[in-house]
């Protein structure tokens, strides 16, 4: 679009909603909570992404001494083979973050599809809700064990586990939003205008269901990170020697007296991640409520 175009042209179909919605979500990151949470996450994300650049030696580079106490060069000390625990923690972030950043958005998309399927056919919607009930009936650990047994331990099994157990939250929220949105007058108005069902869905219903889902996504990220840790600790997730927050804890606990930082390091990372996502969820929630009030 040229700059001197005084009447910008917006065909309704091409770029649905967004600008107002996105602005509101971005506004969340301008609050103190959003800034701290977002900043924290950004730092960790960059560290994880750039780990091979920052620490070119990789996770297995050994120093002379094992079990060194924390120092400036080795902030979390070294482990039983003299490897830097901090470097291993940063590399572990790659696993945690890649898992949740892939699995949770997928779960959200699938959950929305399943949740909104009720609009296409009542029966399909009901079936999806019952599937969610079944998933919720399984403890996540048991679910993880089943999946590992089926496809073998590793990144993929963890991703699927996280995806499956965060699915019901999204599905139920989406369905709840669908049920309230469906009877709104602007949805009826679109119906009366003859707007095709698919467009009513994508233009009117879907954008207005996003608020609670985004908050939930942020919370599901935390749950996913902890699920990885839990499954890896008991040996069902990532397998040593690959460092993940879970495997680090798994080994670290054995040396808790010789090197307390071996356990404390991964826990600090877990807490920082949880803090970041929690702050973001809080900020998003506040922004969404604020927008609703005005």
């Amino acid at each position: 679009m040229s700059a001197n175009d005084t009447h910008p042209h917006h065909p309704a179909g091409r770029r649905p909603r967004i600008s107002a919605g996105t602005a509101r979500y971005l506004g969340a990151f301008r609050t103190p909570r959003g800034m701290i949470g977002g900043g924290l996450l950004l730092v960790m994300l960059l560290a994880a992404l750039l780990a091979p650049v920052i620490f070119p030696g990789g996770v297995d580079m050994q120093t002379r001494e094992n079990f060194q106490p924390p120092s400036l060069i080795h902030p979390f000390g070294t482990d039983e083979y003299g490897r830097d625990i901090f470097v291993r923690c940063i590399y572990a972030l790659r696993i945690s973050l890649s898992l949740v950043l892939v699995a949770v958005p997928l779960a959200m998309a699938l959950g929305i599809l399943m949740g909104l399927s009720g609009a296409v056919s009542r029966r399909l919607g009901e079936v999806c809700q019952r599937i969610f009930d079944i998933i919720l009936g399984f403890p996540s650990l048991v679910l993880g064990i089943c999946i590992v047994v089926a496809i073998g331990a590793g990144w993929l099994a963890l991703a699927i586990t996280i995806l499956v157990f965060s699915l019901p939250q999204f599905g139920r929220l989406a369905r709840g939003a669908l049920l309230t949105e469906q009877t709104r007058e602007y949805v009826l108005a679109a119906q009366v205008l003859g707007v095709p069902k698919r467009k009513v869905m994508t233009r009117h219903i879907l954008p207005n269901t996003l608020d609670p889902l985004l908050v939930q996504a942020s919370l599901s990220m935390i749950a996913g990170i902890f699920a990885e840790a839990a499954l890896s600790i008991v040996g069902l997730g990532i397998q040593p020697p690959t460092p993940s927050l879970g495997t680090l804890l798994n080994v670290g606990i054995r040396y808790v007296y010789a090197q307390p930082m071996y356990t404390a390091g991964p826990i600090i990372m877990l807490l920082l991640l949880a803090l970041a996502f929690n702050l973001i969820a809080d900020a998003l929630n506040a922004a969404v409520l604020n927008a609703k009030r005005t």
Partner: protein
Amino acid sequence: MADDILLSVRDLSVEFGSAQQPLRVLHDVSFDVARGRILGIVGESGSGKSMTAKSVMGMLPEGGRVTGGDISLAGRSLVGLPERELRRLRGHDLAMVFQDPQAALNPVKTVGWQIEEALTVHGMSARDARARALELLRQVGIPDPESRIDEYPHQFSGGMRQRVVIAIALANSAPLIIADEPTTALDVTIQAQVLRLLVELRARLGVTVIMITHDMGVVAELCDDVIVMYGGRVVERGAVADIFDAPQHPYTRALLRSMPQIGGDRLSRLPAIPGATPDLSHLPPGCAFHPRCALAEEVCRRTVPALSPIPERPQSEAACHVAQREGRLPPEPAERGEVDAAAGRSFGRAPILQLEDLRVDFGSRRRLLRREPPFYAVDGVSLEVFPGETVGLVGESGCGKTTVSRAVVGVNPLSGGRILVDGRDVTAFDDAAAAHVRKTVQYVFQDPYASLNPRLTIRQILSEALEQRGLPAAEREAECQRLMEMVGLDRGYLGRYPRAFSGGQRQRIGIARALAVEPRVLICDEPVSALDVSIQAQVINILADLRDRLGLALLFIAHDLAVVRHLSDRVAVMYLGRIVEEGPAEEIYARPRHPYTAALMSSTPRPRPDPGAMGRKTVLGGDPPDPRNPPSGCRFRTRCPIGPLVHPERRICIETDPALAGDGRHRAACHFSGEAARLAEETKT
């Protein structure tokens, strides 16, 4: 006189927000209430009327504080009293009746318990409280109080619940009762019952009432004195008769003139007040009304006028520079409004919209194990709308008027009858029929806040509709601008989101959206009932203009008889899923043939003070029956003022369902339709 003053409010100012950036919602509000009088506080949303009441009760919302002035009740100052003292006063010396009787009663406690609670907290013994509660229920006209005292709020109808709330307010014989829009949530016939009750209680118990309302009609019928509020200030104060006879503030006068009338001449255009009600956080400087005032001068834009007596009419006080200088309020510069241009309009021959024996069933949804019996929200409605004609569909909530209209556009499925749009049977509502309906019939919704998607700009909202019309993308922008101009909005607003608009503007956007597909019939479902009085006239005028310019047929659904009368050529009155009377508008209003129509008209408050009017009104008793289980014979017989309730010998009403019958175009479903007109006559004189 001075010791007759029960409540005196002097220069009351209330602020919200931080001390650095206070938001002042009340500015130097002063008024007195004399013992045994009813004071009306009128104003639109944001005028500060509810805030005034809450300040008196000491119940300002979180963050609000009185920053100046005084409130004294029987000589005792209420400002700055500790919470404990205030709590003792509330319920005992001043009581409150809330707007929504549903929300004002606790659903898990019996009504008796709730009345007794009001008594026992002020020190009455449980046994005395029970006896007093029974007496109170009897006083507020609840039949059979001995058995109903132990029932729960959900077992009471809306009107009965409001009576219970009034009983609670009366419990401790508080000398002052503050009623905050007590009838706004109620239907007209129920509103009439509650208003009559208030008048009776005043006569019997001598209570003093502050009545907060937006409805000038209610003020005229009920109140002795009135203060008019605008933008957090009192703009006019005086006796009801004086203010309605010769308002001295331009706002009061414009408000009265802009209301459609149920009696008198039908104007072709309502003299609407331009602009919107001001936002308290952005009050205009000087007189808050000046941007909308035809008389505004330089001084109005700069200085806030004080409330003071008008030299030539010392009995009323108004805050207007012009009136104070001239000695009285000069007449409007431009006098407009020809009488009844609607009379000359002509309509097409073949109906554009035809409903035949329409039935909509809400009940027979299949449950898990059983089938619910059918429940017809609409039970055999036939109606025709001709091109260019406006048909008003009137009735109280739950009568099925919205259901009828939504069935036409395919939102509610039919269980019987036929719908013809422009001669074509669309009952099946398959794809072809749906497309035909959507091109021909469009819908304007009631709630302007819910009917626009908050995430789309106005341009996107209108473009979506234009896309349905099949307009190529390149031409949509120009058409969007044309639509905006058509409804009187600036084309520069196209890029904004709905939240940037006021209720009246949003409703115009809703109208523009409906018109985007160039329909020939517009169904308007209560399009002005959610709007402030001063905005209603604007929207009504736009609808009338567009109808005349585009030759639209209008199916206008409303509960407000005055609005319907103003716009309609023909009127159909619905009761409990059926049309009970139908005919040319002027004839129906002049000579109703169904007692329900007569009662509706008589119940509608008129903005013209008439001391004896309350006594002559035909006030219907009881409530509309449950549509799941309609009465045998005539559905209206359980409330009918000329039916078997009054004339037990009229068995025919119980045994036979009356059909719509009558000469020519004016038909009514009543066995004794000749008597309804007399009923209406009695009320008028």
